[in-house]
């Protein structure tokens, strides 16, 4: 307590140093004057009186020193002094300083921007109180370690587990038709169904009104209440607090607003920010799946389940409990739960297992760190040469009795100042890069749902930035500081430019060159590989035609169509479109290929296929389409037939599979005419009537199984209309509008645009962003490395000017000297190349295992990079050597 008080008093004294000095001087003078007066009274002569007084007082300077040391905080004072000194000396060499700062800024900026990616994708805690207690519960199968639960399963988990303070469930964020007033055309908003205890269990207090009550989530359809998201409230209701109690329309049903979520809770999703929350019990208004009953079917798995661990309960206990429950499910409900387990994941596990994109983030961070390392070696090299040029100054300081530690601190302060400046500029660059990401937002998310790139330069990232700056200050400052204070004083003072070519010292600098070369080589290899991986994904044939297609999406649920009305609408729409002039062909499909939404899955058992004993069924992605789909999309039917108008709801059920599927399950025979059974071996038989060519479905994945079902036999609510035109697809927009208006003027048309546009945005520009990012990192790395390499080698050679002079004086031919210095440089580059290649290969292995098969070594990369580095090194050695050779030996010997 006392020492703390002293600390603050000392801290305060830092500010008033000068006034305090005056005060002390005055006090001392007063003291001595008094003593002198006393001595005078005692009868001494004035001179003697003063002398005695001074004697009695003791050493004034020593005491002043002591006083000062006690008064302020010498450590801080010295630091301030050092910083001032550093700023002064840096200002003397503005060019060098600017270069160093920019170099570091690039490294730090890139690293922090990429770190913000990884942070958002993996580490950032949930925006709720005590986020670490929130775990994710998932259903697991052979095919997926991350499956959802059905409503019934959720209820069982909620009621039969004891490890949690609240088990919550939510469905995916879905498009919801919102109108503030009856009679207005609905607009699409992102709505999320959540369990009644959602806000309460998460510990989220609404900023207005209240969260759901549990009884509002008990009876299907009874309580139409809605909680608004903070942004939605701000934009749609202008932050009006009187919104509570107001009635709004969601998918045509009246809902009462009961609360507004706080700004601190933008939702639990990584990318999405729900506009509205509604209770699960209101599922009849929102459900997408017309085939299943949300409240009853145990295999209608649409819910993500999270829970808050009870304090004192371990993850292990929770896992065991859930495992037992999953076993019970298997026994009690073999039809829906055979060979299905369950798992409890922490936040980290859940995020890394659910979405693999973080791996790109990690590779980006590794690359950015490599850039930073190159930057640091650059700066270290520069500081080293600077420190050497200052050797005399340092020697003088040492000779005058400055402690070595004090000098090291001085020099380190310099690099800290540099790194801080670099860090600040790096934050600016980081902001720039993150902003650039944000500007690409609409490209990445081609959807009307509220999605955003969650990368921010927030407190956590800034902190990382700071740590990076400190680290780089140490990295690039410590070695030069240690080395330059280890000076032979006598030599240093004698000559202006000491060159005691200690083996160690050269070794240090050579190390820098080698590190430089190898890091940049690795960086370039990696960015080449990544860029090429994305590029190749782009070049790959998708397997269908993309041009001359107009797409537009319909969602009849938005205006409360029932299943029959929906079917009728699509039937009429398809018929009218086929009759419209300019339309060559028409297709309806649940999902477009390479679209935003995931395809539905289908569980099936192929007839005549020996099932493994531990599996009840297989899974495949599927799409629901109409008769015109294959023709319109230009996907060839290899065997059998396409769907026909005769495949009605009453006709025997049929399906078309892709070639990959056919080969997979009937490697020997023809798949056409075979049957698959839905869900289980006793399920509904479906005849395979055709085999379609395998295309790219979700993204540029490797070939996968795929099943098509006819719309009439497998109705879905949301469909996309695709129209093939002879000319500009946009000319079809008006005719489509006319047809839709004649069918129902209230039905909104969503995302009406040429498919090619959509495809370019979605599938091409997204990867382009990654290519740009990786490419620019590689380029920056190479530029930095080249600059650094040139600087280091040139410096090394110019240090040897005198030595070269001696060699020439002793009769060496200039070609010998050139060979000597250039050869030396080449040896170093050779070492660097070997190490760099090794690291590049290692990184490539890592990338291949993590991301995609980039297809082995990129010879081109090495053909470009290695010679570049060699040429730079040779030039860097040649130019100063040339200069040294041109100087007359006598002059060289006197040089400096």
């Amino acid at each position, binding site marked *: 307590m*006392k020492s703390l*008080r*002293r600390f603050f*008093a*000392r801290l305060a004294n830092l500010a008033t140093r000068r006034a305090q000095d005056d*005060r*002390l001087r*005055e*006090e*001392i003078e*007063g*003291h001595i*004057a*008094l*003593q002198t*007066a*006393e001595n005078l009274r005692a009868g001494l002569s004035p001179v003697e009186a003063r002398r005695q007084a001074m004697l*009695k*007082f*003791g*050493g*004034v300077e*020593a*005491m002043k020193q*002591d*006083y000062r040391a*006690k*008064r302020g905080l010498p450590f801080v004072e010295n630091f301030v002094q050092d910083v001032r000194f550093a700023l002064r000396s840096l200002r003397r060499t503005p060019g060098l300083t600017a270069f160093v700062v920019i170099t570091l800024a690039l490294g730090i900026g890139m690293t922090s921007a990429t770190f913000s990616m990884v942070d958002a994708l993996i580490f950032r805690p949930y925006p709720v109180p005590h986020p670490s207690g929130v775990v994710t519960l998932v259903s697991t199968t052979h095919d997926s370690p991350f499956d959802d639960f059905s409503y019934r399963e959720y209820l069982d988990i909620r009621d039969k587990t004891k490890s949690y303070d609240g088990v919550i469930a939510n469905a995916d964020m879905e498009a919801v038709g919102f109108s503030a007033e009856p009679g207005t055309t609905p607009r699409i908003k992102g709505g999320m169904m959540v369990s009644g205890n959602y806000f309460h269990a998460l510990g989220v207090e609404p900023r207005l009104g209240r969260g759901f009550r549990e009884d509002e989530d008990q009876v299907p359809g009874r309580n139409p209440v809605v909680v608004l998201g903070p942004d939605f409230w701000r934009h749609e209701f202008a932050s009006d607090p009187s919104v509570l109690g107001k009635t709004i329309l969601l998918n045509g049903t009246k809902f009462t607003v009961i609360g507004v979520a706080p700004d601190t809770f933008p939702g639990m999703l990584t990318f999405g920010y729900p506009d509205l929350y509604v209770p699960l019990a209101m599922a009849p208004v929102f459900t997408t799946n017309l085939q299943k009953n949300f409240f009853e079917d145990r295999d209608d798995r649409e819910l993500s389940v999270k829970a808050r661990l009870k304090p004192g309960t371990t993850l292990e206990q929770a896992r065991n409990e859930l495992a037992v429950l999953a076993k019970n499910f298997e026994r009690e409900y073999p039809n829906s739960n055979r060979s299905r387990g369950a798992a409890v994941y922490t936040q980290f596990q859940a995020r890394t297992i659910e979405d693999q994109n973080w791996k790109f983030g990690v590779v980006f961070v590794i690359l950015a760190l490599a850039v930073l390392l190159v930057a640091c070696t650059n700066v270290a090299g520069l500081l080293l040469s600077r420190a050497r040029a200052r050797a005399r100054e340092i020697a003088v300081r040492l000779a005058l009795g400055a402690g070595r530690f004090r000098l090291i601190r001085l020099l380190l302060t310099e690099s800290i100042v540099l790194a801080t400046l670099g860090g600040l500029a790096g934050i600016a660059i980081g902001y720039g890069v993150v902003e650039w990401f944000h500007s690409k937002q609409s490209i990445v998310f081609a959807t009307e749902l509220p999605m955003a790139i969650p990368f921010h330069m927030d407190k956590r990232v800034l902190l990382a930035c700071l740590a990076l700056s400190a680290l780089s200050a140490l990295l690039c400052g410590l070695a030069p500081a240690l080395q330059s204070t280890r000076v032979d004083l006598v030599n240093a003072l004698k000559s202006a430019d000491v060159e005691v070519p200690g083996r160690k010292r050269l070794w240090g600098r050579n190390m820098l060159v080698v590190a430089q070369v190898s890091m940049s080589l690795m960086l370039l290899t990696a960015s080449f590989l990544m860029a090429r991986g994305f590029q190749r994904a782009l070049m790959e044939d998708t397997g269908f035609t993309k041009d001359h297609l107009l797409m537009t999406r319909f969602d009849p649920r938005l205006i409360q169509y029932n299943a029959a009305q929906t079917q009728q609408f699509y039937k009429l729409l398809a018929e009218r479109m086929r009759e419209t002039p300019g339309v060559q062909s028409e297709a309806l499909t649940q999902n477009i290929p390479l679209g935003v939404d995931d395809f539905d899955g289908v569980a099936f058992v192929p007839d005549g296929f020996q099932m493994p004993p531990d599996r009840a069924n297989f899974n495949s992605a599927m799409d629901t389409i109409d008769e015109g789909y294959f023709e319109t999309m230009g996907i060839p039917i290899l065997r059998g037939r396409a769907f026909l108008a005769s495949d009605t709801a009453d006709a025997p059920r049929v399906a078309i599979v892709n070639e990959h599927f056919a080969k997979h399950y009937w490697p020997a025979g023809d798949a056409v005419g075979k049957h698959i059974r839905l869900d289980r071996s006793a399920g509904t038989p479906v005849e395979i009537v055709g085999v379609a060519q395998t295309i790219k479905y979700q993204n540029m994945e490797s070939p996968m199984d795929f099943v098509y079902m006819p719309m009439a036999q497998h109705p879905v609510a949301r469909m996309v209309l695709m129209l093939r035109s002879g000319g500009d697809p946009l000319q079809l927009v008006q005719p489509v509008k006319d047809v839709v208006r004649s069918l129902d003027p209230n039905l909104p048309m969503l995302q009406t645009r040429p498919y090619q546009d959509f495809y370019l945005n979605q599938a091409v520009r997204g990867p382009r962003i990654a290519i740009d990012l990786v490419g620019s990192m590689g380029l920056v790395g190479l530029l930095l490395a080249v600059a650094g390499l040139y600087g280091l080698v040139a410096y090394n050679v110019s240090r040897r000017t005198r030595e070269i002079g001696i060699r020439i004086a002793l009769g060496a031919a200039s070609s010998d000297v050139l060979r000597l210095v250039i050869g030396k440089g080449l040896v170093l580059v050779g070492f660097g190349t070997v190490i760099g290649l090794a690291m590049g290969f290692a990184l490539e292995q890592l990338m291949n295992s993590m991301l995609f098969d980039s297809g082995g070594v990129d010879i081109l990369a090495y053909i470009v990079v290695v010679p570049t580095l060699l040429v730079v090194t040779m030039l860097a050695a040649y130019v100063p050597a040339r200069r040294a050779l041109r100087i007359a030996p006598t002059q060289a010997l006197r040089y400096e």
Partner: protein
Amino acid sequence: MVLKTLDVLGSLHGYGIARRIEQISGDLLAVNQGTLYPVLLKLEQEGAIASDWGASENNRRARFYRLTKEGRKLLQAETQDWQQTAAIIGRFFEVKAEDLS
């Protein structure tokens, strides 16, 4: 000692304190007077004493130190401490060999 001096004499400037300490110790304790100032500074930072400018006997500006409430408390504690220590040490000196047997 500084605290006690201030306690007895009230507000006093540095020279006065130094003189007083010399007098009381009967000039046995003649350290460099200068060393007093760092001590005063430390005490002031700890809040045991406070200081103001005032006029000294020969009408110079001088800094007068006085005891604060906290200083008084500190003095009390220190006095007690010292007395205890002195008592203990004193007892050791009084002890004779036969007392221990």
